[in-house]
């Protein structure tokens, strides 16, 4: 789609930040529609299991970051506690955001694992 500013809001704000949970071609797609100098933060490979094509980042000067939850362990305890409180508040005020999929008996753990990869499913537990 070419480089240069692309405005996404009626107030003239730019799109400088994108989040990717899919990996692979999905990163190319995000890089194509964000604004010049944007950052894409990858946090998963839900679909592809493939790496990013770095050449797709160049036209819009996009930076790519990748994070794992392990970075949270390095935070001070007070910061971690704030995230616990955030979880509690969200669970109280927006319980429907925590999608409950199937529940399985303990012995059926392999069936539960297979269910995780069913397309479009919410969380599974056992």
């Amino acid at each position, binding site marked *: 789609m070419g480089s240069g500013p692309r405005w996404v809001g009626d107030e003239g704000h730019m799109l400088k930040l994108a989040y990717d949970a899919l990996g692979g071609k999905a990163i190319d797609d995000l890089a*194509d529609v*964000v604004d010049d100098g944007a950052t894409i933060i990858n946090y998963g490979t839900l*679909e592809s299991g493939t790496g990013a094509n770095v050449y797709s980042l160049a036209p819009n000067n996009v930076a790519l970051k990748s994070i794992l939850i392990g970075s949270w362990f390095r935070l001070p305890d007070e910061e971690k506690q704030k995230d616990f409180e955030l979880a509690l508040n*969200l*669970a109280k005020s927006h319980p429907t955001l925590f999608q409950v999929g199937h529940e399985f008996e303990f012995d059926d753990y392999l069936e539960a694992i297979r269910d995780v990869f069913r397309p479009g499913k919410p969380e599974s537990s*056992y």
Partner: protein
Amino acid sequence: MQTEFRSIVQSEYGAPEKVLRIAKRYLKSEEPGSGDVLVKVIARPIHRGDILVLSALPQGGPVAPISNGTVRVPGLEGVGTIIRLGTNVKATKKFSEGQRVAFFPANGSWAEYVVVSHKSLLTIPNEISNQIAAQMLVNTITASILIKTGHNSLKPPFTPPVYILQNAAASGVGLLLAQVALDRCVRPIRLVRSNQSAERLRSVLPGPPIISTSDSDWKNRFAKPSTGRPTWVAAHGGWATKDIC
């Protein structure tokens, strides 16, 4: 008498159906370490990340070796009931035996019992179900990390409101990311891969725009005004949160 319990274990990394098995184990002691708590697990989630790690796939990050003659118990999160408190935890009076708690991280929640540091515990009120409590920490923490990392990635000066673009917006983390963003006056634009997902997402979290990437022209929604094509907001009538933020 030692308490016997079941545990999912692996003695090597690999595909779940090849390396996982149920093993009977015994609590060495019902007295946890001074800063720890013994929890009887009620339910634990299965995250894709759990599978990546137990399979030692690179997307899951580096894994610790499993020594010969030992086993690894997968799982970092869950909900359960406190059975015993360590001496130092008792002294804090923050927790009590019989209390229901969510926990993260734990060393092996895919078992019927787990020992957890008191710093990993969150007391769960009655209004929150086990199904939600079992999965509420990892996904929320991930959303929080994403928001913080995103904030730190934006180069000042920038003028609020900030717009973000997110794919897999109907996923567990995607839903929470959008909600946390909205609560902080950030405006998400949500991508999903099918119209069916778009409908489901709209019913769970209405408001911010949703675009299905199954539409061949979805990228045109991001055109700049100078092209004469409609901007996203102009075409879709504004933001549901505009009055709030």
